């Protein structure tokens, strides 16, 4: 299967009064349609790694390739386009725009891509609302929903452009166990239904056990990489 994400010799150094290196020579690749977890203690560099894969942060050294595009040579605008078309983000906090409704938030990546909301995209949005079980609140303002509903809306938003990769950084960190279980079940469903690649950063071992591959980072280095 083709690699949808590939990192070669990636270092990350934060420059400051004292330089801090948080990633050391990372070599990693992810198959299309894979379902993986990145685990590690807080401060281990797992979130930084995810942000570099998501092109939100830049590697200090090495090469990052997403869906066949080597990101090192792309301009800011090209990176933005790449993110819009191929990557869906889910963060610990939902980051919904409170000025818009749930539905409008979900359609936002589609509109950013410069496309008008066509009938097909509205249908896709409705499908996602159904799959995520939040059809009831789709016309609610984003700040008039429960925490679980907000995070599910954020997931629908990450999926609307049918991205090749979903990068999730502690996606259930703010949720109770019931909501947590539901969200991982949904991730799995989507992974199987659409072939979307999932990369989930978590510090929760039990969640990681549910994935197909566990990568453990310690002090900026990969110490464990198990494929089931």
């Amino acid at each position, binding site marked *: 299967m083709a690699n949808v994400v590939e990192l070669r010799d990636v270092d990350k150094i934060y420059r400051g009064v004292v330089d801090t290196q948080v990633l050391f020579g990372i070599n990693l690749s992810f198959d299309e349609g894979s379902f993986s977890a990145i685990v590690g203690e807080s401060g281990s560099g797992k979130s930084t790694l995810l942000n570099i894969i998501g092109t939100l942060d830049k590697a200090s050294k090495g090469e990052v390739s997403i869906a066949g595009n080597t990101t090192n040579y792309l301009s800011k605008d090209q990176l*933005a386009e790449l993110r819009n078309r191929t990557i869906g983000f889910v963060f610990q906090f939902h980051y919904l725009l409170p000025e818009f409704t749930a539905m409008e938030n979900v359609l936002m990546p589609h509109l950013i891509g410069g496309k008008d909301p066509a009938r097909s995209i509205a249908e896709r949005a409705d499908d996602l609302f159904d799959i995520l079980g939040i059809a009831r609140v789709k016309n609610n303002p984003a700040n008039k929903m429960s925490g679980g509903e907000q995070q599910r809306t954020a997931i629908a938003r990450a999926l609307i452009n049918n991205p090749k990769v979903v990068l999730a950084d502690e996606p259930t960190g703010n949720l109770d166990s019931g909501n947590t279980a539901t969200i991982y079940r949904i991730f799995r469903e989507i992974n199987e239904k659409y072939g979307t690649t999932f990369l989930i950063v978590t510090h929760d071992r039990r969640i990681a056990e549910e994935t197909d591959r566990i990568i453990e980072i310690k002090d900026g280095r990969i110490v464990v990489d198990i494929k089931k």
Partner: protein
Amino acid sequence: MLSLKIAVRFLRSGKTQTTLIVLGMAIAVSIQVFVGLLLDSLQKSLVNETIGSSPQVTITSATDIGTIRDWGAMVETIEGLGYARALSVEASATAFVRDGNADLPVLLRGFNFENADAIYSISGRIYEGRRQESRREVLVGRELREELETDVGDRLAVFTPDGSVTIFTISGFYDLGVASINKTWIITDLRTAQQIFGFDRRITSIEMTVDDVFQADVIAHRIEQVLHDEDITVENWKEQNEDLLGALDGQQTSSTVIQVVIILSVVIAIASVLAISVLQKSRQIGILKAMGIKDRSASLIFIYQGLLIGLVGSVAGITLGLGLLYAFSTFTADPDGTALINLYVEFDFILRSWLVAVLASMLAGLIPARKSLRLNPIDVIREG
């Protein structure tokens, strides 16, 4: 269009903040429009009262005899230039009228009534009687009438310096609003004056008004060049009213300074409010950038916010400013209803004010727009 949509939502989400800044803009623009129009009206009234009903360019003879012979050709040439709004030729000279035992000096002014009326608006200022219609009728000013204690229909003997006397009938009395004129001018027709003073067909001056009074010096110079005649002198009102011009200039400058300061302060106010809104909305901008919105579109959100504030604020401000002006003219009017200042509402000025306000407000959006460029999604996400 997405940027515009987000801009609208951002403005609507902070209703109090938006209302306050739009209100601030509206008040600033209203004061700017009010001050601008008021001072402009004041200036126009002043110019109008001073020179509006008098010739702005005058051509007189530079020769010793004081008369112009070939005026027909000159008038034709001047009219051909197209500057003259009204043009009148006249034959005037000093004469005397007798008041008891004293001789009062007067200026017997002979012109074609219709032409002179277009300059001096005499017909509207005849307060008793009517305009002169026959060769033996004259119009007399208010002050001279009071001195002579005459009435419409009375006879008036006019003595020329060479000793001849002509008896006229007074057809009416005028008041041109200037005592020295009312006291000295006796108005008759051109042919009569020419005959009495022995000018034959000659005249003493050509007077004209122009469309743009502030161009009078340029026009006078041009006429001088075209006529190219050493026997004549071309004068304009600006040479004769330098003090007034200085005052008008000063007024204009202070009006401009006030307006610029007002607009500048509102630009700074809008810029600072929008700059704060970048901070308030940094989370939203950050996530939009993570989702792939380009820097240009993200900046546009703030420029659109400036534009929207400008559009709403300036229209409200202009309406308010005109309202203020109306209220001012109503409350300061004399008991008989005459306005203290004649208001001239210049559409051009309003349009200009509107454009400046909208542009300035958009410009104010540039500062937060630049700030938003530096906003990195990773910083927002790291901070949570």
